[in-house]
């Protein structure tokens, strides 16, 4: 099964119905996915800025 399909299945388990009980794996992926991607993007941009000696677009997160 591909990664997106796996995420989709994991998400399907997370139906916000009464009595819903979140699975540990769903909770872990919910937080790990954005943090891992944010760290990757942040360090990749820093590396690119250092290599090419440029400052890429700044962005707020408000």
């Amino acid at each position: 099964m591909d990664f997106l399909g796996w995420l989709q299945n994991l998400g399907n388990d997370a139906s916000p119905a009464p009595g819903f009980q979140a699975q540990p794996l769903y909770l872990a992926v919910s937080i790990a996915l954005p943090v891992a991607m944010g760290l990757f993007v942040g360090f990749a941009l820093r590396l690119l800025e250092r290599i090419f000696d440029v400052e890429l677009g700044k962005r707020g997160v408000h």
Partner: protein
Amino acid sequence: MDAGSFLLSAHSFPFLAFFGLVIGGLGGFFGVGGGFLMVPMLNVVFGVPYNIAVGSDLGQMCGMSTAATVRHSRFGNIDFKLGTLMIVGTATGVELGAQILELLKRVGTLSVFGREIDTMTVVMSLVYALLLVFLGQAMVRESLRTMRRAAGQVQLGAETPAPPAVVRLRTVKLWPMVSLPASGIESISLWIILGIGFVTGVLSGMLGVGGGFIRMPALVYILGCPTVVAVGTDLFEIMFSSAYGVLTHAHKGNVHLVLVLALLVGTTVGAQIGASYTRRAGGPWVRFGFGCLAFIGVIMVAIKLYSKLFH
């Protein structure tokens, strides 16, 4: 409606990523996060229930703020003590905001003009409309003022002063007092810091916004933080508060993982593209455009609500 019943699947990934790219591009162009546009537009365009849109947008925000904090950390403009103290207030607020959303979800439907309509949709649409009106008018007024200043009608260098009542908060001596050397603040009541965090936390947990439009002026005007420190600390704080928001919303089943990934991919690229175009446009015109965009958002939310009520 649950997470599996609307158009959110691996097949819709490209559309969602493109949507993230557009919102991320607009956010990058206007120098904001775009959370206040993301959530209502996910509801209006894709029909994503507000609770799922808020939870998933917080995931997107967590990733973007982590990337921004990593980049910003090399400038050393983060007051870690202030950020950590504020997280306590924000986390409490986020939890309250998420519980309010959960309560709205449980209320079910209400009868409006003889029609049964989802309570959460009505309340959240109205709250978003008010928020967008507030942000839009503030941005348009500020941009017009800057344009008049540039044209010589307002004295150059004249900044909008903080209201005296706001500045007076800085002098409140309510125990315990803390000092923030990194921000150059000798003494400030802990309750002021927690209060700022709490208010923005409620907005974040309920609406899926970062709350920087309140926290930034609060840090500068109420606490007296230098602006660069306020920016860095705000990013640091959003990273943790959005992470807490993701956890508490995931616990309630409100985080859709495919949606989070699609939005992250789109906004990461879009933000860079948008920010690069900002440099080609004049600052006041960019903010004026942002204000107009907020009003367009209000119209879209109003049309969606109207169609639910009367069609």
